[in-house]
């Protein structure tokens, strides 16, 4: 295992301290917790909390700051944080107008965030939430009832963050969130599995000439294992999946996210972007917003995912709303 770490059981704690060391002008760590919170949270606005297992950096701490998340809660690697930690995150974020939770659809995350919500409500904090299940690869996969939550969550963070910054109420955020989740879909491909530090070996094995479509960000099984394909063929497969799931109609507008899973260089992500462009130019749809990079990773997994969000109303504007976070 070629990793730049110390004790494998300490990676989350050390990472969070390193994160605050590097970005201490913008964020702080709530003492004795795994919560990274925005400094100087503006009062009188609904605030946003997200999080989940670690290993998806820059998600979620990299999105903490004005215009996006007010707190991010980290669990152990690929393991949902516990309710008390999420509760600490909610308290750190609360600015009096209620707290909105963005949860990825994994059994553990849903249960732990739900219990935290109960704890917060018992203390008089208004909490609402959305569960993101954008991964169209498989239904009912490992760790999840229904579809998994993956890179599309990043669009949800961005748009809800902008809306909260513009003064949306908790109720309005919930309504927007529900519509977002219905309109966001992702699908990915992995060349290699991630290696969890405490496990010390890859979550599954792919031969040197194999790749797998639809693998989850915790190395959950995908929908098809095949010989390594060209970027062109990969783009064709991934966009075909999204096309089928969305049922593209002429005149529709979409936002596009190409997401590196951790070990895939930006060069390859841009090559794929070029092939996605060619695929989508065959469709009578417009892509007024695009983003490429590592946003929702899976440790050192080599692979990429494609996310599309069918745009409604002023969502492009919200995507372009200025933020002050570490990674956007």
């Amino acid at each position, binding site marked *: 295992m070629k990793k730049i770490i110390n004790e494998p059981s300490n990676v989350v704690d050390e990472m969070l301290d390193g994160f605050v060391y590097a970005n201490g002008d913008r964020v702080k760590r709530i003492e004795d917790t795994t919560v990274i919170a925005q400094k100087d949270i503006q009062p009188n606005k609904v605030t946003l909390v997200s999080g989940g297992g670690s290993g998806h950096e820059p998600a979620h701490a990299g999105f903490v700051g004005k215009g996006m998340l007010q707190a991010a809660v980290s669990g152990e690697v690929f393991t949902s944080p516990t*309710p008390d930690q999420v509760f600490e995150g909610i308290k750190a974020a609360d600015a009096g107008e209620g707290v909105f939770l963005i949860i990825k659809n994994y059994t*553990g995350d849903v249960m732990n965030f739900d219990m935290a919500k109960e704890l917060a409500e018992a203390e008089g904090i208004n909490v609402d939430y959305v569960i993101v299940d954008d991964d169209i690869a498989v239904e009912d996969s490992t760790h999840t009832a229904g579809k998994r939550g993956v890179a599309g969550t990043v669009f949800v963070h961005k748009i809800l963050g902008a809306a909260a910054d513009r003064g949306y109420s908790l109720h309005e955020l919930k309504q927007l969130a529900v519509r977002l989740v219905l309109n966001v879909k992702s699908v990915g491909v992995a060349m290699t599995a991630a290696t969890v530090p405490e496990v010390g070996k890859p979550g599954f094995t792919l031969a040197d000439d194999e790749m797998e479509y639809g693998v989850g960000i915790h190395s959950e099984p995908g929908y098809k294992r095949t010989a390594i394909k060209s970027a062109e063929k990969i783009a064709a497969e991934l966009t075909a999946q999204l096309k089928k799931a969305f049922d593209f109609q002429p005149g529709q507008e979409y936002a596009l996210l190409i997401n590196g899973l951790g070990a895939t260089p930006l060069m390859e992500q841009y090559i794929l972007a070029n092939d996605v462009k060619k695929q989508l130019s065959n469709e009578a749809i417009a892509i007024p917003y695009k983003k490429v990079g590592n946003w929702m990773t899976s440790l050192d997994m080599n692979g990429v995912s494609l996310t599309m969000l069918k745009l409604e109303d002023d969502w492009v504007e919200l995507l372009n709303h200025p933020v002050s976070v570490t990674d956007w």
Partner: protein
Amino acid sequence: MLTAEQTNRWLERFAEKIEANKDYLSELDGIIGDGDHGNNMARGIEEMRKKLQAADPANGSEVLKNASVALLSKIGGAAGPLYGTALLEMSKQMTEADDLSAVVKAGLDGVQKRGKAEEGEKTMVDVFAPVYRELEAGNLTVEAVEDAVEATRELKATKGRASYLGERSIGELDPGAVSIGYLFISLIEEGLTDV
């Protein structure tokens, strides 16, 4: 109701089994899940030990409640809320009746309410539920628990686990079933099923 001392013995034996089998549990989880169940449980167990040693509980219910809080705050993932809920519901039930099978039933109900899994979906429920039935029938044995654990091998993970590679999960034990099995085996080995 179990005494504080009895409950401590029960959970200490459980803790020893988890620690001895930490790597085994993670390996099982590595095959059909994400390989963290042993580490998750061990983290919770360490905290539980600390909490139980520091506490001065009046009865078994309090011990379970303390353990529940410790596990909930350290396990994380799916197992954390499930163990936390199971122990908390058992703790609550213990204050109301002395019937151990009713206590286990409360835990089972809590797990199912929290996790929405039915029997047959290859989760800890597939051990929890038969254990309750055997207890109620008055013949819970270590073998019965082990059989229930072993029976998860042939189940295909569905709720929360199926996939086109679903066959990956067939032929392997469910890690949460194995770990909850240790909880009930510890109960039996400490001779607490007949008190």
